[in-house]
């Protein structure tokens, strides 16, 4: 992977994890500087962009939540309606529980205590009849976790 495509993948990975544009551009610029000065290969020096983004943000989030003595680490994933189910599938497998849905935003949380982390699966239904979807899905063990009409989001612990 050349530097340019590495950096753009890294930017995408950071944004998807809810990093704001200031944090994203800062992190990308720092990697870019390091690469141009050291001449190192990006994969060699930083590892896969997705993993690097995860490592960078998780440490900051955990640290911030430790300071606040919170039970949960919170993260807002950014995705459009087209890619969000894939994002949710990955996030759920890593223990992120969807708590609310907003504008291009999937608000998730995960216990700070890694022993208490559960894995989640997600389903999205499209309907104008909220009550009917709720009844359907509840019967199958799904719990509602977000509503952004016409999308209804459901979660189920794996």
């Amino acid at each position, binding site marked *: 992977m050349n530097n340019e495509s590495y950096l753009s993948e890294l930017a995408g990975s950071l944004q998807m994890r809810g990093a704001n544009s200031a944090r994203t551009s*800062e992190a990308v*610029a720092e*990697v870019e*500087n*390091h690469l141009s000065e050291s001449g*190192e290969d990006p994969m060699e*020096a*930083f590892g896969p962009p997705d993993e690097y983004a995860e490592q*960078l943000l998780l440490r900051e989030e955990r640290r911030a939540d430790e300071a606040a003595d919170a039970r949960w680490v919170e993260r807002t994933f950014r995705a459009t309606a087209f890619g969000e189910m894939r994002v949710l599938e990955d996030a759920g497998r890593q223990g992120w529980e969807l708590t609310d849905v907003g504008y291009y935003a999937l608000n998730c949380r995960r216990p700070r205590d890694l022993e208490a982390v559960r894995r989640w699966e997600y389903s999205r239904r499209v309907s104008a009849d909220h009550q009917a979807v709720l009844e359907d899905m509840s019967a199958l063990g799904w719990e509602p976790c977000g509503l952004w009409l016409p999308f209804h989001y459901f979660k189920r612990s794996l």
Partner: protein
Amino acid sequence: MRGVLDLCVLAALADGERYGYDLAQHLDRAGLGRVKGGTLYPLLARLEAAGLVTGEWRPGHQGQGRKYYTLTSDGRRGLEEQTSAWKEFVARATTLLDEGRGKHDEQ
């Protein structure tokens, strides 16, 4: 040994600010080996979030912006405390290792 790397980074900043790659080279020259960017920057981000260092972006010599890290007063205090804790640990381990070697020599 991750905690020790934190400590070495704080120590490397004790005599003044440095940017990421400068730090990596400094640690390498000190004989600690090449610390990968994938290890170094998340560590710096964590130290910054913990308030032990602060980072400031300034233009470097070729117009490229660089983030310079400086120890905060909390960082300086942390460095002093952890350095004495680390030295005490090394002294105990050395005693233990020497005792082990003494017994080995007796046999």
